[in-house]
């Protein structure tokens, strides 16, 4: 489904963010990409839809090589990949409906999109998706009126209305509270299962990754150092991914995100009132 072949990204500053990444993601698989900050997680998923241009190597989506496409071919390929962002990246001053429909921009011409004359099927699909993610009565709200969890649901709907084959998810829960984080991750995984979508999910919250992903890939300094099941993610492996020093710090009671502690106290009662968000 998605195949990365020796992908290298070197920034102009000389930093090598990715150092020869080989990765294959079959259809319908939810893959969590973990690793410390600066390991290249964001760069990796942005190399797939070429928001970041890889320096060398090839990316294939199905049979198509993404890396060799011209600009109009790239736009067409991007329609097949939905992306979900850490800070939601909704267009704040547009309504929920406009944000969801912006997922169809790759299919609709400029003037139609400018005058918001989207095809009727698209609008119907937007209503369906908004109701699927639990935002039926929010259609006409402006994006900046929503809470974090609600915004991320709009982000998910925007990605899904593209009718993608692959979801690229960049730290979907980093700006959310623990309870909402779980709800959002659960929603993303359910939707992937419903539509047999493949997903690459960047996530720095290891317990969350273990809970929801079928497969975990650990990235460290632009190199894949672990690729396996959540069960195989031992302390030793975590040390290899996050480094000894970080790991020791979290062992002495610091709340580093890498500590696998399923009874995270933050998700206990004090956030119960946020359930609806």
């Amino acid at each position, binding site marked *: 489904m998605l195949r990365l072949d020796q992908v290298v990204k070197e920034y102009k500053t000389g930093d090598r963010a990715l150092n020869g990444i080989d990765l294959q993601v079959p259809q319908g698989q939810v893959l969590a990409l973990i690793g410390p900050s600066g390991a290249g997680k964001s760069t990796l998923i942005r190399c797939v839809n070429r928001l970041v241009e890889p320096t060398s190597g090839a990316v294939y989506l199905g049979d198509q090589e993404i890396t060799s496409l011209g600009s109009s071919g790239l*736009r067409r390929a991007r329609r097949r990949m939905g992306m979900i962002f850490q800070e939601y*990246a909704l267009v*704040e001053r547009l309504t929920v409906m406009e944000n969801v429909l912006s997922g169809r*921009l790759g299919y609709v011409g400029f003037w139609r*999109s400018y005058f918001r004359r989207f095809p009727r099927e698209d609008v119907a699909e937007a209503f369906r998706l908004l109701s699927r993610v639990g935002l039926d009565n929010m259609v006409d709200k402006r994006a900046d009126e929503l809470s974090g969890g609600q915004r991320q649901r709009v982000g998910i709907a925007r990605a899904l209305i593209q009718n993608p084959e692959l979801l690229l998810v960049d730290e979907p829960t980093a700006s959310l509270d623990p309870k909402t984080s779980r709800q959002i991750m659960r929603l993303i995984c359910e939707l992937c299962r419903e539509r047999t979508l493949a997903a690459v999910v960047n996530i720095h919250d290891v317990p969350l990754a273990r809970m929801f992903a079928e497969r975990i890939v650990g990235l460290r300094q632009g190199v894949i150092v672990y690729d396996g099941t959540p069960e195989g993610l031992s302390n030793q492996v975590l040390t290899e991914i996050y480094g000894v020093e970080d790991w020791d710090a979290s062992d002495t009671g610091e709340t580093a995100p890498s500590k696998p502690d399923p009874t995270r106290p933050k998700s206990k009662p004090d956030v119960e009132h946020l359930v609806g968000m």
Partner: protein
Amino acid sequence: MPVRHDKDIPIWRRRTTARKWGVWGLWLLGTAIFVYCWQLISDKTIWMFVWDAPTQAADLASRMSPPKWGYMSELWRPLWDTLNIATLGTLLAILLAVPVAFCAARNTTPSALLVRPLALFIIVGSRSINSLIWALMLVTIIGPGVFAGVIAIGLRSVGFVAKLLYEAIEEIDPDQVEAITATGANGPQRVAYGIVPQILPAFAGISVFRWDINIRESTVLGLVGAGGIGLQLDASISTLAWTQVSLILLVILATVVVSEWVSATIRHAMI
């Protein structure tokens, strides 16, 4: 080092001794220059006229009052011209400024090496020339009248609007544009969905603010023959018709107050 040791007790001062003397010396120099300039101005002033000023002011005030209300009937037309100069000039400026702003903003310019410096040059060029001087030149080029005024206001405002707009474009949140790009949107769609909604409030605010400034500027354009109420002002001053002058000044004051109120209301509504 501002820290000095006195029997092992560190003593901290804001400045070292040398810097303290330096600061004192600069103050001394500044005072000396001020006193010297005062002396120079005083020597070249004819003090007799200055002592006379209150009498003169009172005299002018008496000649200006009461305003000649009957003259109002001749002012409606030039007032209407003034408003038109300001409004059409602002529209012209907006029309020209939007593409210039997109060319000048670092994140949207087609070429940072070629197009951006050109756009910045247009902005600086337009801003560096006062609208009165634009009008003076345009009156000699295209003749006196309202049209010269409109163009003068337009050319002066291009730089202002483009500068503030391109700063707003540079400050947008790039994530929103990235998200729109990721959907497979093309260039114009990225602008329409990713950028325009983000700069719309700034755009409205800038335009209305400039319109408000232009109302004030267009009241004096007539002094150089570019139409509007300034023509009447010029004529009245030349003929020493001070009661007409006071009426014109009152009319200008009222217009500016109203335009400020309108612009504040619109800006408030747009946020």
